């Protein structure tokens, strides 16, 4: 927990709706085709709160939070 959390993406499940980039611009940007490029810097505090919301909002459940190592 000390290191914080980061996002793991299931790129096979992802179909590029782009909701995550709207909710978590601190860590996620979109490529030319609308698929998320994720910054793996560990998150804590307020950013982590936003990350949780982004994970929950993914319509195809392609995002997960995991402990940063």
């Amino acid at each position, binding site marked *: 927990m000390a290191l914080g959390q980061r996002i793991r993406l*299931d*790129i*096979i499940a*992802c*179909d*590029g709706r782009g909701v995550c980039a709207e909710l978590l611009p601190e860590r996620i940007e979109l*490529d*030319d*085709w*609308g*698929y998320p*490029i994720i910054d793996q810097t560990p998150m804590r505090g307020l950013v982590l709160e936003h990350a949780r919301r982004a994970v929950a909002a993914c319509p195809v459940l392609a995002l997960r939070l995991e402990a940063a190592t």
Partner: protein
Amino acid sequence: MSVHERAPIAQTTGPVLPRLLTAIGTKYANQAMPLETHRLTYPQPIMPRRHPIESSIKAIEDSGLRGRGGAGFPTGRKLRTVSSGHTRPVVIVNGSEGEPASRKDALLMTRAPHLVLDGALHAAAAIGAREVVVCIERTKRDAISAIELAIHERVQAREAMVPVVVVDLPPKYVAGEETALVHRVNGGDAKPTLTPPRPYEKGVGGRPTLIDNVETLCHVAQIMTWGPSWFRRQGIDDEPGTVLLTLSGAVARQGVCEMPIGMSMNEVLFAAGPTNGVSAVLLGGYYGTWVSGPDTRWVTLDNKCLRQVGSAMGCGAIVVLPTAACGLRETARILTWLAGETAGQCGPCVHGLAAIAEGMTDLSLGRATVETVASLERWGNQVERRGACSFPDGAVRLMRSAMKVFADDVRHHLIHGPCGATRFAPVMNIPTHRELAWR
């Protein structure tokens, strides 16, 4: 130095060259070698009596053998990892050769199927596996029947062995990717899956799975027969042994040959006899990289040297591009084919490879601008390492090496439009059949 030291007995045992291709060029040049002849040509590998598992793995580790499928991972380390799992492992022989420029694995399976089985069965014994699966594209009927016949011969001869089964694959490039193989053997589509877990941790039936290329396993068989120090007598220190090359393109002598690793590319090309000069060489096949004409004169065929020019041995396929051909046009054709070989699962691969192929096609037809060149670079960065498997990375690598090796041609096409090479037939053979089924 005494006479005895100059000629130690050990130096005189074991084949010198060729090693794997001993069968080829005999009367078995056009058919599979039967078991009896096989035993005389390739002596049976020996399983160490004491600590069989530990000593076999140690022998492969000491040999320094690296996988010959393309990635070049140390085989000994793979054996050790798989054997250290909690459950009994499984062995998959990767006989898929989706690479259009390579035919070495098909050659080994059709001519020397017992050598492939020797390797697979000894790898299985070395890790305590009791199940071997041989995966081959269903279009390679000769290879499938040769392997099946070889299994039958062994059963008839009452050889002690673990069950070996053949699983056919759809003829698709990514079907040979290791997670795709596992998924297929487990009853699914031959498409890559998300990692982790990797097959060495959780593969066939959830068990640790050793996946080795056909040529790699043939080397394993010979190391078990002649020992690791025999194996190291050819090749270089970091990459010992011999390697099979598949030569094609503008050369007089096409086909598969066996060379010690570290041989000069110039020598190999000279032996193959370029018919119309060498403007560049595609090394590692359609999933490989370009080596420029001037570089082909000094590089040696080992990854240590090739790294300096941003290339690698890959699967050992070599396609020679003649002076009159256009490297950009050839690359565009390959990239278009690769884009169509995507499993269609990951967005960056589906859209990125199509965009890259289109950009390269525009460039080769003289329709591109400097923005196209910038886009190709950006797309390369956006696609790299973004797929579930490394298939898209190979396409990006090929595109980048073309932009570097054919930098002068890029400039020429941007300023003057298409080059004169469009008058000639292209060099690269692109498979025309596109398989739709995934099982």
